[in-house]
């Protein structure tokens, strides 16, 4: 039975088209996987279904009933439950309050019926109890929980509503292996109860493990729908990225060992442990492994944001202590993040300001003329192939890819020696990606070095001269030369070859 169908949904955010006519349907008793590259509109589609985003056009039907002017409240009443990618928890409320939020059992006066509520909580929590630390109480405030536990709370919250249609937007991204196993167990049971499940994940093995059908999206609409059993990985990837990605890129000039630009011994911090590394001039050092294993923390530590608890950091042989981004900038470090909305861009400010903020901070003169700034940006803008109208426009009028170029430009203006890149191609299209790869190669030839964290293994292997594989905050392997291939990387990331891991 078709539980849900969405037809030709369109949605634009300002200048960006998030959905350009997406179709989707969900049957009862299936896990329907939604797949597509970053920014292709998966989350937006889910939000349209749940009423958080109001579509420009298109229809959503639940059990053949048209949902008009959907609000989250309405969709919930019609049996839709969503685990949002960015979670929808209230940090200052307790776990129990969050789980039951909006569906507490009350008496006629609006007073909570404690025993009933507790029963409901117990029922849901019993399954998850083992995953929570000993002594954990449901009265704990959500903000005190680690991200993985918060994710579990969000899952419990949806289960508590016992919806017929469940949407899970990248729920496994921050979960550990045991947590994921439990989650998949739950999915199986929901399936058995004839619920319809939409599951979003970027991890192909998960998709093949639990999916029944798959819809692949690209550029805001679906480009294919099939049962899992009748599709191969290659076909999926092909559908996801299209034909453009034929020309295999590979960093051409190999790393010529030169001076060490940056090096560290025994670096430990909040989420990194005893990391040794050395970065030679002209080298691209990749950071790999599963996501969230300390790669970002490592970069942020190098950039002076996260505190370094132990170990020494050397810049061209000189011991340095970097306590703030500003100090790191003075040592010619640059930090480019792919999570530009949060870490990079000043959406409401002009392109000019976005470009020059760091340059101006390093200037000796505290004053400047905007005209002069504009002039001095020319070469960098050309280098990047930035497309813009005037530099005084807010950066939010640019597309994501161009916004990303602005951030890269910001750092190029500082003539960096070491570029730290934190998943810089997130939500960037293929052409721009390729431009970026070539730019980095040119930078390396000009004497820079790059440390490159990427969640895209393909990208990592194509660009890096060496890859440090992270696991639980440690570097568990260094790959180079012929080891730079997907299977080695994958095995290392999962700890397959690591004798220490075997006993676990």
């Amino acid at each position, binding site marked *: 039975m078709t539980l849900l169908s969405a037809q030709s949904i369109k949605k634009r955010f300002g200048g960006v088209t998030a959905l350009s006519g997406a179709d989707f349907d969900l049957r009862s008793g299936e896990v329907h996987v939604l797949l597509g590259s970053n920014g292709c509109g998966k989350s937006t589609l889910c939000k349209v279904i749940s009423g958080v985003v109001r579509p420009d056009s298109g229809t959503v039907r639940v059990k053949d009933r048209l949902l008009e002017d959907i609000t989250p409240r309405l969709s919930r009443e019609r049996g839709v439950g969503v685990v949002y990618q960015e979670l929808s928890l209230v940090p200052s409320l307790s776990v129990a309050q969050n789980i039951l939020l909006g569906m507490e059992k009350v008496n006629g006066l609006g007073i909570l019926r404690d025993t009933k509520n507790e029963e409901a909580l117990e029922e849901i929590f019993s399954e998850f109890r083992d995953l929570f630390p000993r002594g954990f109480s449901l009265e704990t405030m959500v903000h005190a929980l680690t991200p993985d536990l918060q994710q579990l709370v969000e899952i419990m919250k949806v289960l508590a509503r016992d919806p017929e249609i469940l949407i899970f937007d990248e729920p496994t991204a921050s979960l550990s292996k045991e947590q994921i196993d439990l989650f998949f167990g739950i999915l199986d049971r929901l399936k058995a109860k004839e619920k319809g499940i939409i599951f979003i994940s970027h991890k192909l093995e998960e998709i093949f493990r639990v999916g029944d059908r798959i819809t692949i999206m690209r550029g805001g609409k679906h480009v294919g729908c099939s049962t899992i059993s009748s599709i191969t990985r290659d076909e999926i990837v092909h559908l996801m990225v299209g034909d453009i990605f034929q020309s295999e890129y590979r960093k051409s000039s190999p790393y010529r060992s030169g001076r060490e630009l940056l090096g560290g011994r025994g670096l430990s911090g909040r989420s990194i442990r005893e990391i040794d590394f050395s970065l030679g001039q002209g080298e691209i050092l990749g950071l790999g492994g599963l996501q969230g294993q300390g790669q970002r923390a490592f970069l942020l530590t190098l950039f002076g944001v996260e505190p370094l608890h132990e170990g020494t950091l050397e810049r061209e042989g000189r011991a340095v202590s970097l306590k703030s*981004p500003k100090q790191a900038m003075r040592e010619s470090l640059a930090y480019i993040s792919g999570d530009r909305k949060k870490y990079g861009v000043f959406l409401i400010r002009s392109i000019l*300001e976005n470009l020059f*903020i760091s340059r101006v901070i390093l200037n000796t003169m505290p004053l400047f003329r905007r005209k002069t700034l504009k002039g001095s940006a020319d070469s960098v803008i050309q280098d990047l192939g930035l497309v813009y109208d005037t530099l005084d426009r807010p950066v939010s009028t640019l597309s994501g890819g161009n916004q990303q170029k602005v951030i890269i430009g910001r750092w190029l203006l500082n003539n960096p020696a070491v570029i730290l890149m934190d998943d810089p191609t997130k939500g960037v299209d293929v052409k721009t990606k390729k431009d970026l790869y070539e730019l980095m190669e040119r930078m390396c030839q000009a004497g820079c070095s790059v440390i490159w964290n990427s969640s895209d293994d393909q990208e990592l292997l194509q660009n890096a001269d060496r890859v440090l594989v992270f696991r639980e905050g440690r570097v568990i392997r260094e790959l180079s030369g012929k080891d730079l291939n997907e299977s080695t990387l994958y095995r290392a990331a999962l700890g397959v070859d690591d004798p220490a891991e075997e006993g676990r």
Partner: protein
Amino acid sequence: MKQHIARVLDPTVLVFSLCLVLLAIGQIVSPGFAAPRQIINMLVVASFLGIVAAGQSLVVIGGKNGIDLSVGNLVTFGAIVGGAVMRQQDQRLMLALLAVLFFSFLVGLLNGTGVVFFGIPPLVMTLGMGIIVAATNRFITGGVPVGGASPLLRILVVGRIGGVPGILFWWILIAVLVLVLLHNSRYGMNLYALGSNETAAKLSGVSVVPMRIITFGLCSLLAGLAGFLYLGYLGSVYNITLGDKYTLASVVAVVVGGTALTGGVGGYRGVFFGAIMLQLLESLLITLRMEQFGRNITFGVVLLLLIFMYGRDKKLRM
């Protein structure tokens, strides 16, 4: 097309046009309202608010619920300290100015420290600091103001060059400095970055803590300076609540000038005209012989309309 509309609704343009409209209405109902002399009079009255609002806009642009409710008391403080140090003597003018600037800056640093290091919301931190400053005012004066403006200060403020009183030159000078500070200085670029995205600002090298503290300092400093100039206008301090009216008025001028209380946008151009607009409106309502209640209601409604145009929060449902 959309961009076209956006440009028409540019707060500075809007507020400026509103000023012209108010002048026109005033001139029609009461000929002479828009006479140069009257305009200058209104500008003089607006100037003090304009200077206080300059500081206020810095704090607001810096974001994180930035607001300074101690400015009114600092205006009084500036006038009182200025008068007490100057004791009507020209040779003590510089000393008095420096004292005012130094101590009001210090108050601002304390505000900033409370906000940054103790996590006190700016609203209550500055409210509490306002009480302390008011108390200090009382303490300095013992309830009875001491000293007064020196002749030179009076000339500098109310003396006229070509019919234009000195205070307007000072205001323009301060406005130019603030505009340069906001749009052509490292500080300004950092401030806007901070207000629009603190995390990104930090990762771009902005020193968040000093920036915030200094911004509160500058705000207080400008309020103190406004008080000092006000002393020149008044001659002596008669009333230890004389600055109170500037506290919320400065916030209103900031909002009317198109600087969102959420931070990161706006600037002094709009606020400059915002201060003038408020004064024009006030004058017009008086000229219309509108009774107090009518003035209040009109004023409130105009304010709500302006908020409707550009003082709104983001939608929850996108």
